[in-house]
Structures are given as structure tokens and as C-alpha cells.
């Protein structure tokens, strides 16, 4: 029977991936000024995490942990609660998408699952802004442009994640991991 709970080793791995999400957000910079461009890095990390620990809830745990870390580090322009919920949404969204699409190593499934996870973050941010009575966007198509950015960079992040997983498998990382488990 397939183990449904996480081992301590898997939890440590997921915590490391969560830390990597926060580090990627802080340290990695691109000259691209489009909203959602950081999804290129962190969706790759979330997809790799979900592939390394192939259990339902792995991406959610990465999202939740990185949300707590980012919230305490004061990241984001809209407060700790917004940061925490949006990071968590990335994980939950990716998990739900992978529940449907299954294999995060698949070069079609991963670039589709990742934008779904990334769009979940966008959805949370939009709901929170609407709930707090934020004004209408100054730039009429600003929200559409942001959404496109989230989808495109999420997909690229997912593709990068799937390629990384394939690279790790080719390098024998999964065989090494199964010994450690």
C-alpha cells in the first residue's frame, strides 16, 4: 500500500524547497518588469518539490511553509496576510492541478499545472484586493496583462521544473533518494 503520510526526511526536503522559494524570490532578479515574472523561478521550485516528494499535499506544504517564512520576513507590498495566503494558494493550486494532470515530469502536464498554481495566487490577491475595497485599476488592461504574465511565467517555470526533474532522474538522484528513505 502506498504511504500517504510524509516521513521526517520528506518533510525536511519540503521545508528546504520552501526556503528555496523564498530565497529565489529575494535573490533572483530578471530585467523583465512584467507582473508574475518571478513565477519563472518559484514555480520551477514547487514543481521540482512535488516531483521529488510525489505525494498529495507536497506542493501545499511547500506553499504553506514558504508563506509563513515570507510573511515573517515582511515580503510583499500588501502585508503579511496577503503574502501568506498567496504563497499558500500557489501550493494548493499546484497540488490540485497535479491531482488532475498527475506526472510533474511530463513536459505538457507540468507547464499546465504550474500556471494553474500561479493563477491561484493571482486569484487570492484579486479576491483580497476586491474584499478590501481597492480602487479600480488605473490602467484599464492592467489586470489582464498581469494575468497573462502569471500564466506565461507559471508555464515557463513548470517547464523548467519538469526539465530539472528529468535531469535529476537521469543523474540518478531518485535512486539515491529511495535509498535514503
Amino acid at each position, binding site marked *: 500500500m502506498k504511504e500517504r503520510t510524509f516521513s521526517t526526511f520528506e518533510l525536511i526536503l519540503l521545508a528546504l524547497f520552501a526556503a528555496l522559494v523564498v530565497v529565489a524570490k*529575494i535573490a533572483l*532578479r530578471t530585467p523583465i*518588469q512584467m*507582473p*508574475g515574472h518571478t513565477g519563472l523561478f518559484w514555480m520551477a521550485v514547487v514543481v521540482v518539490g512535488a516531483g521529488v516528494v510525489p505525494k498529495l499535499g507536497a506542493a501545499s506544504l511547500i506553499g504553506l511553509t514558504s508563506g509563513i517564512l515570507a510573511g515573517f520576513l*515582511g515580503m*510583499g*507590498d*500588501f502585508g503579511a496576510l496577503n503574502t501568506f495566503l498567496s504563497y499558500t494558494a500557489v501550493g494548493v493550486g499546484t497540488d490540485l*492541478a497535479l491531482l*488532475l*494532470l*498527475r506526472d510533474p515530469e*511530463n513536459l*505538457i*502536464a507540468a507547464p*499546465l*499545472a504550474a*500556471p*494553474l498554481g500561479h*493563477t491561484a495566487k*493571482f*486569484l487570492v*490577491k*484579486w479576491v483580497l*484586493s*476586491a474584499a*478590501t*475595497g*481597492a*480602487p*479600480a*485599476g*488605473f*490602467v*484599464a*488592461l*492592467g*489586470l*489582464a*496583462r*498581469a*494575468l497573462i504574465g502569471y*500564466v506565461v511565467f507559471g508555464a515557463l517555470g513548470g517547464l523548467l521544473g519538469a526539465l530539472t526533474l528529468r535531469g535529476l532522474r537521469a543523474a540518478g538522484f531518485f535512486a539515491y533518494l529511495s535509498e535514503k528513505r
Partner: protein
Amino acid sequence: MNQNKRILLAVLILVLVGGAILGLEVLRRQRVTPADLKPGSIPIYVDGEMEAAFTPEDLASLKEVSFQDAEEGKSQTGWMLQDVLRVHLSEDTLTPETSITVISTSREKSADLTWNEVEDAENMVMFDVSGRGTLKLVSKMEKLDTRDEWVQDTDRIEVASP
């Protein structure tokens, strides 16, 4: 269900979620904007009276500027507040001691500045467009150089004579 159907379903979900957000935002945009203003525009009040509104059309005549914020090293790109005010207000209204307050009603935040501070190009008092398309007031000034101090979701500018 085979993988092709799963992929198709995922694409459909993505399109539906995106469409729902954009559709609801169009409705919200009409609801949250006062009847006498264009959606998204920012009213400018002078001594309590609405004098003008800063609209997206104004951007065409404004020069885009940018700087890297000290807190996270991110590039902030947008339009100087002094240029925005000059489009709508006469030079007589703007004396060095004129008080300018940039307000976000939803976030209950504001920044109190003088025209002297706004006019100083070194201070880089400017509006940057946030990820969701609203304006945030950012600056290199010490009292306005962190995310806590910035005024996100700006929806009102008040100008008061000294």
C-alpha cells in the same frame, strides 16, 4: 479519463478562472468608481474642492522614470507626481509650502508631502503601477522609501494651500 482529456480539462479550468476574474473585475470597476469619474482615474482635490482627475490618457504626455528601491532592489517605474500635478494645476497653486497628501482609502494609508519635496527630482516622488494595475506612490525620500511607507492603491490626491 485519458491524459488528453485531463490536459483539455486543465486548459478549460485555466481559461474559466481567468475569464471569471476579468469579467468580475469589469463589473467591480464600474461599481467602485464614482459616477462623475472615469473608471480608474484619481481625483485631485484643491482646498476641499475637486479640481481635476488624473486619468490614464494623461500618461501619454508624461515622461516615464525609474529607480531601484533600497529595500528590495526592485526597479520602480512610473510617472513623477510633480508632472501629474503640473498637468492639472497651475503654477500659482503650487508654492513650496503647498501641502500634498496622497491617500489610499482602502488601505487607510496616506503620505503628507510639501510641493518642495515633490518637486525635488532627487526624491523621486512618483507613481508606479502595481501588479494589479493600481497606482502606488513610491519615493527615495527617507520617510517614504519602504513598502510600509508607500501608498499602495492610491485613490485620491489632496492639495492644500499653506
